[in-house]
């Protein structure tokens, strides 16, 4: 993880920034109100903001959500609303279910539904491969037709 530099800007708020892989610095100015400013520093003058965007509270949250790779946010309503007939469900793996890989279960082949992510004690896994093992205590996030999801849930019972 890159080191975050925190600066207080009197009368404005705080700025937190860090260096990204290309050597540029990237930061967020948090105003005392809930407004945020996303800032990108110049390559040849690392003290100067080259480019910035003002965001209100909702826009900042939305951007944070889009950028997040390590946490899953449940939004069935939005997703199902986008494509008619598409459903998304969270299926907890019950106690007593023998740990099996997604490939062995052949969920996609047998139900048409796809496991797009899992969460569990070891943290969330986005887009797990066929070798990923599902075990009790995990939750599979499944996308498909409502029928497909019902069938997938049946496969995930002991």
């Amino acid at each position, binding site marked *: 993880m890159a080191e975050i530099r925190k600066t207080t800007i009197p009368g404005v708020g705080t700025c937190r920034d860090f260096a990204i892989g290309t050597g540029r610095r990237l930061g967020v100015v948090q105003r005392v109100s809930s407004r945020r400013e996303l800032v990108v520093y110049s390559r040849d003058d*690392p003290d100067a903001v080259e*480019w*910035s965007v003002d965001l209100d509270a909702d826009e900042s949250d939305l951007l944070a959500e889009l950028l997040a790779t390590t946490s899953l946010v449940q939004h069935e309503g939005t997703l199902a609303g986008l494509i008619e007939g598409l459903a998304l469900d969270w299926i907890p793996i019950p106690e007593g279910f023998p740990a099996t890989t997604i490939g062995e279960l052949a969920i996609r082949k047998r139900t048409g539904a796809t496991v797009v992510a899992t969460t569990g004690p070891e943290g969330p896994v986005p887009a797990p491969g066929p070798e990923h093992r599902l075990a009790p205590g995990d939750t599979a996030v499944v996308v498909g037709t409502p029928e497909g999801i019902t069938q997938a849930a049946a496969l995930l019972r002991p």
Partner: protein
Amino acid sequence: MIFAAAGSATVLIELGLVLLALAVLGRVAERLGISPVPLYLFVGLALGDSGPFRLDVSSEFIETGATVGVVLLLFLLGLEYSPAELVPTLRANAPAGAVDLAANLLPGAALGLVLGWTLVEALLLGGVTYISSSGIVAKLLADLGRTGNRETPAILSILVIEDLVMAVYLPLVAGLLAGGALLATGVSVAVAVAIVAVIMVVAVRLGPTLSRWLFTRSAEVLLLSVLGAALLVAGLAEEAQVSAAVGAFLVGIAVSGPTEEQARPLLLPLRDLFAAAFFVFFGLEVDVARLPDVVVPALVLAAVTAGTKVATGWWAARRIGVGSRGRRRAGVTLIARGEFSIIIAELGRAAGVVDDLPVLAAAYVLILAVVGPLATRFTEPVRAER
């Protein structure tokens, strides 16, 4: 009755014309990327007794507006700050604040003495050259998208410290202007500074309580409560010889949280209106005929104190590890002088100091309120769109 009606018609017509003239100039300022403050001053100069146009509106009418304008300017400035962040800022940047004070107050004071003015008058001119315009600088930083720049905390810390120094400077100068025997002056200055200290402590301690007490969901009632509190404390401070401006500033600091967030947008348009009245009023009262005589000293003073501000900003930015380009930006941004310099000059004018002081201050602000923003914009090539 007819005369009264004619009178009010004249007032309305004249006010309307003046506001429209200010609006046109405000548009020009926006185009040029400079502050409208010097243009407002200019309108005042043109409308004054010795200027080309004369107003029938009584100057008491505009003066009342101007007084409210100063209170609102300072109150909204105070709103920007919360007690919690003032103390650490002050502690971390005290050396930069001290350098700023010495480098920029002394040239003005020195010129005052050279011109043969009294010590208080020299001290007033020192105040005029000392204080950068937080209004102009804040607008520049926002317009140029430099809020996140590394040198910005250095710039803003200097402005914060200058504003706090004013809280001591204004009552001190007010006490000296009131004059009298040395001992009496000393006592009244000490009392004034003590009152400021007490209000400051009270503001820090009771700020949240006061804010909660003033808060209401109704925008109308909130406007009336906050404005009422600001005017009342400003008036009481003036009565105690602390200067209304300082009282308003301290109430602004005390008000925080949701009260502050909701009151600010309500008061901003009022401030813009009354602050314009203040700048026009100051221009009105300046003796324009003296303007040609003060041009040379004003230019010299502007050149010297632009240089000392650049040096101050450069040094303050270097202290926090900013590179050479950022140091230059910090220095040049601080050049602009504006509303506070005029407030200080007006304090002197109202107390009847030497005539040249307000004229010189007006010329000085006219120069640096235009040069400062232009120089700031052109220190860097316009940012490339990528």
